[in-house]
Structures are given as C-alpha cells and as structure tokens.
C-alpha cells in the first residue's frame, strides 16, 4: 500500500477518534439521563422518532465507528498476528460493512 494511503488511513483514524470522544460523551450522558429520569421505552421512542437531530448525531457517531474500528484492528492484526496485505484489508472492509449495516439498523429502528 502506498505511503500516502497509509498516512490518510492514519489521519482518518485520529480524526474519527476525536469525533468519538465527543459522541461517546454525549451518548453516555443521554443514556444516564434516560435511565435516571425514569423514561419508559415508549417515551424514549416518542422523542427519537422523526427527530432529525438524533438521526444526524447517531449517523455521525456510526460513521466515526465504521472508520475508526477497522483501521485500529488493521494495526492489531499486523502487530499481533503479523497479518498484512490485501486479504486482511478485504476482510476489514467487509467487517466495516457489517458494522455499518448493524449500526444503520439500530439508528433507523428508533427513528422510523
């Protein structure tokens, strides 16, 4: 893989990490609030259904996860198992697609 592509992957992982720091904080605060304020599932869905702000927020969160996790695993596979090359990258691309699909299902499940 070219040096430029390696550097762009590294930059994408750092940028997505910064985004994740923000998203995880907001997500945790929201979960703690929802759990402590006694909201029922129906009340939570009432707030999230059709709410474009939450759709946008969790879409950004999901995008950050889909970018961050496979690139991190790529380094783990290289350093711990010595697995490099196209076969590893194709597997991780497939893993990213699965993450995106599962995440999109979860987001749309509370939006629609």
């Amino acid at each position, binding site marked *: *893989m070219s*040096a*430029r592509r*390696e*550097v*762009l992957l*590294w*930059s994408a992982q750092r940028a997505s990490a910064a985004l994740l720091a923000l998203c995880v904080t907001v997500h945790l605060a929201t979960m703690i609030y929802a759990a402590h304020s006694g909201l029922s599932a129906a009340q939570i869905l009432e707030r999230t259904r059709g709410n474009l702000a939450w759709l946008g927020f969790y879409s950004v969160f999901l995008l950050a996860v889909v970018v961050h996790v496979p690139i991190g695993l790529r*380094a783990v596979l*290289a*350093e*711990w198992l010595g697995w*490099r090359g196209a076969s590893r990258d194709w597997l991780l691309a497939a893993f990213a697609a699965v993450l995106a699909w599962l995440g999109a299902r979860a987001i749309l499940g509370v939006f629609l």
Partner: protein
Amino acid sequence: MSMLQLRVWRGGPRGGEFQSFEVPRQASQSVLDVVTYIQRSLDPTLAYRFACRVGMCGSCAMTVNGVARWTCRTHVDQVCADGRLELKPLANLPVIRDLVADMREFFDKWARARGRFAGRRTRHDDFERVAPESEARRQVDAAIECIGCAVCYSSCDVVAWNPDYLGPAALNRAWTLLRDVRDDAQTERLRAVAGDAGCHACHTHLSCSERCPKHISPTAGIAGLKRAAAAAALWGEL
C-alpha cells in the same frame, strides 16, 4: 570484600545460556568495569564491545538487569541493590556472540529512512544562513546529539512487534533532516518514513525517550514526522 553475583548471557546466533560469575565489588565501579574484569581475570573468551569508556561512542550498550543501558556510564550502585547483575546483549537485534549484538539492521534502517543529508549547494556557493534561534534550528538542536548506541531501538516494543519498523533512532535522524532548511530531499524522506514501517507505527509508549542516555526524545521527533506526513498526504504531496 563483598562480591557481585553475575549472570552473563553466553552464546551466538543459534542460542545460548546464562553463565554465572563472581566479581569483587569496588567503589565507583561501572558495569563495563565488571564485564572487563570477567574477560581479563575469569574468562578471556567473553565477547563484548566497547571503545571510549566515557559515553561518547555508544558501542558498549547492553541489557543490564532487563534495561538497555550504556555500561560505561552505569555505575553498579545505580542498578544493583541486591548484589546481583544480569547482563544480556541488546534486545531486538541479532546476536553475534555473547554480549555483542549485530548492528547492521539498525544502521541499514537509518539509510532506509533517508538519514543522509542532501544539500542543494556546492562548495562554490556561499554558506546558508540558519538563525540559531529559529524554531526549526531549535528542533534540530534538541534531537541532533544521537550517537547511534541503539538503546532506544532495543527498548522499543514496536520494533519487537514489527521487525520492519524503522525504529526511534532512524526516525529521529530523519526528523533532524526534515527540519534542516538546507536539505533538498524532504518529499522523498517523508515517503520513506511514512506508513506501517515508519513513524505511523509508533504507539507513543515513550520507552525510547525514557531510556535515551542523551536525553533526546525520539517520540517528539516521530510526532513531528507524523504531522508533516499527514499534511503532505492531505495536500497530495506524498
């Protein structure tokens, strides 16, 4: 007279084992003094490497009680509270014999990181003026005193995990050249040090900075290389 209990690694590229020695303890005794005593008085077949004995050449580095150090500048008192010393060759390098590590790969990586100055002027041109107080020059000053002892390389976990990784010393050298305004091979150098075997593999464990006997921080230089390579990649210059 109190005695030091030594375990010294003996062997070659195919393996070896520890051999025990007893060495008289002296005042202000360096670890290199101990190794020299063994060779001169106990076992003349012990192989080790040294030259200057005063911390200038960087050739006497070994693993002393699990930590890579210059043996000439390490007093026994600093590292040996219980009267026991364990000496091994530097880690992350092949062994030639006993305490002598093969440094070829270490220096080959300096070449691979384009650690050679590439000037654009000839002897017919005037000197380039470099302001001593400029930021670039100060960054070079902070990193330039490396003498190539390989203590950082031996202490680096990433070298152990990824044998292709250029390592802290080669990357530190590349950083000093990247900040040298006279150098004319910056894009080629960034290409050489970017990516999986270069600066982006560094995990910022800081072992190199912690152990460097010259108190250089290769980690800081590697961070600078990462920033420069990221900027060059984003602008399509890499």
